[in-house]
């Protein structure tokens, strides 16, 4: 440390020596650093893995027809994708980040929306050309709904344990599929055109993204 020394006016050379960064638009650079700190690249790799698994399952006819049993493996894959998104809410910086300005809620919101969109997109792409039970609309409803459960779990238990919520919900939903429950809050068990299920999944996602934006994950 050089606290005792007079302040050094660090010129462009000193800045250049410290690495490849220059003055530029704050938003994209900050968002990129935020995503990296949340291990978003790892989450994206996990989503690609889910898409490949879905593709393989469809190709090998592990997912076939439109019955409850056909939807069970699909639901597990959707659960995996939602868990990958939810775990990426983990804040590695703790209180030093929480004591900073008001860009943080926007960053959290942007990351949650981007990764949820990537999860839906990956699974829809993974099923292109094959017959998916419920089709793309069901993925578009179920994945954000499951992600909402994960985001709320992150707020309650912390990002590292955010996968617990989607997994628990999925276990109950698998049972609901077999038992043909009618409650719209078990949206994966409802047909893709069920308006109530769409409303419940949408409400859950809106509430969860609001909570995730304002509070983030629970501090360790």
């Amino acid at each position, binding site marked *: 440390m050089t606290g005792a020394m007079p302040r050094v006016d660090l010129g462009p050379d000193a800045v250049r020596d410290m690495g490849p960064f220059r003055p530029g638009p704050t938003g994209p650079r900050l968002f990129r650093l935020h995503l990296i*700190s949340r291990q978003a690249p790892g989450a994206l790799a996990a989503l690609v893995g889910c898409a490949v698994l879905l593709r393989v399952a469809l190709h090998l006819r592990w997912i076939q027809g439109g019955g409850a049993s056909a939807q069970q493996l699909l639901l597990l894959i959707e659960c995996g994708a939602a868990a990958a998104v939810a775990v990426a809410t983990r804040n590695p*910086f703790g*209180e030093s980040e929480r*004591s*900073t*300005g008001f860009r943080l809620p926007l960053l959290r919101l942007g990351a949650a929306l981007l990764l949820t969109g990537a999860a839906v997109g990956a699974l829809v792409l993974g099923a292109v050309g094959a017959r998916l039970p419920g089709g793309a609309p069901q993925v578009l409803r179920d994945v954000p709904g499951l992600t909402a459960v994960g985001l709320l779990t992150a707020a309650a238990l912390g990002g590292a344990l955010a996968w617990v919520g989607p997994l628990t919900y999925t276990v109950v939903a698998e049972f609901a599929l077999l038992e043909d429950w009618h409650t719209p809050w078990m949206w994966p068990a409802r047909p893709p055109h069920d308006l109530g299920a769409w409303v419940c999944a949408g409400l859950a996602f809106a509430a969860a993204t609001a909570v995730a934006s304002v509070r983030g994950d629970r501090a360790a």
Partner: protein
Amino acid sequence: MNIETIELTRRFGRTRAVDGVDLSTGPGVFGLLGPNGAGKTSLLRMLATVIPPSSGTMLLLDRDPSGHAPRREIRRRLGYLPQNLGYYPGFTVVEFVEYFALLREMPPGRVPGAVAAAVERVGLGDKAKAKLRTLSGGMLRRAGIAQAIVNEPELLLFDEPTAGLDPEQRVEFRSLIRELGQRATVVVSTHLVEDVGAACSQVALMHQGRIAFQGTPDELTARGVGHGVGDAPLERGYSAILAEARA
């Protein structure tokens, strides 16, 4: 005054971690001493706007942090090094400090120069491009200090800043906070009375959530005259006041 608290209280369940603290301080280095569990960290977390007080009044940089807009302004002008520094191991030192500069809403044009200056000031210039996962505990602590000072804050809060630093680095850190204290309010929470003696112009000693003593390091030393416990004069003052508070 940069910090002004009246009857500031923070409860966790039935425990009063901070119990009616009155503080008032302007620019300079303010030492916060006390045994484990005295309430130093809880007080610092409230001053950092991380947790709200349960009751009492708090003004930081002449603003009330309970309001949205004042809190935003305070946070832009605040630096905070928590006791447990979190970090993303894949970041380089520069990325780590830059991330906090951007989060504290520094103008983009000033960020590269401010990051370079902060990294140099904590002596990590030669490690600027090193990943955090490769640094020692002392170096990580210095990276944490760099993120706290990058925005040239008017209010700086350090919780156990010298933990993990070797003696030479501690001497340099004291020089740094003396320099920072010339224009900012620097609050240093520590167990080490020698840090307080060397760097602080004002000191408060906390015991069971309350301020048991507030004054200058010389006044703290004077309270220890004739008291036998402790190797150094400041330690004798510290233990004398704690003995009084416990009695």
